[in-house]
């Protein structure tokens, strides 16, 4: 499954709820305000790194740039993709949206 997280982890439980539901081979896409979970030095860096020991995490470049986050500020191993990459992930995995 593809778990899409679109709320900020600081104000919503969407991110932690999604983590709770991730199985082996599942992947996560951070979009909209969800991308704050991927920012280096934030409160959720540990949770994301721990998730990435088993699951791949992606974030949407359009949302990253809009929020003024440079690619160098994204936690290592989080893969940056565009809308076409988003489509590919949906083709590969059944999506569930956490908002």
């Amino acid at each position: 499954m593809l778990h899409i997280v679109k709320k900020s982890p600081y104000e919503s439980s969407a991110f932690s709820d999604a983590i709770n539901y991730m199985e082996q081979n599942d992947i996560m896409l951070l979009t909209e305000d969800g991308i704050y979970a991927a920012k280096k030095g934030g409160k959720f860096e540990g949770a994301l790194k721990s998730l990435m020991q088993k699951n791949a995490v992606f974030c949407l470049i359009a949302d990253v740039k809009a929020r003024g986050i440079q690619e160098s500020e994204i936690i290592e191993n989080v893969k940056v993709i565009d809308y076409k990459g988003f489509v590919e992930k949906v083709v590969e995995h059944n999506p569930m949206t956490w908002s």
Partner: protein
Amino acid sequence: MKLGILIKEGPYMHQAMDTAYNFILAAMESGHEITGIFFYNDGVYNRCATLEPPRDERNIMKLLTELELKGVRLIVCVAAGKRRGIVNQTVCKVEEISGLGQLLELCITSDRTITF
């Protein structure tokens, strides 16, 4: 692949419709088929015919109408629409209004259903 789209949030208030729009353009460019966009909850507001955003801002209603001209089916839930005032007089196109069965139909006929 056949992709069905569910929109649960209104225009401008949430980014949902913007993300969905960019996703749909990318999917079509990649050769996928959009089986339809179903508007539920506050999503029905996206099809209000009288939107007048400032000139330097995107007009979500018109962007959706362009998608429709490209063959994408738009479906506004009749019950959610009535509750919110999106009815025959206020919706872009009366033919778009339909029942919840159409959402299930999208789930059945699409390889993937994605919620925004």
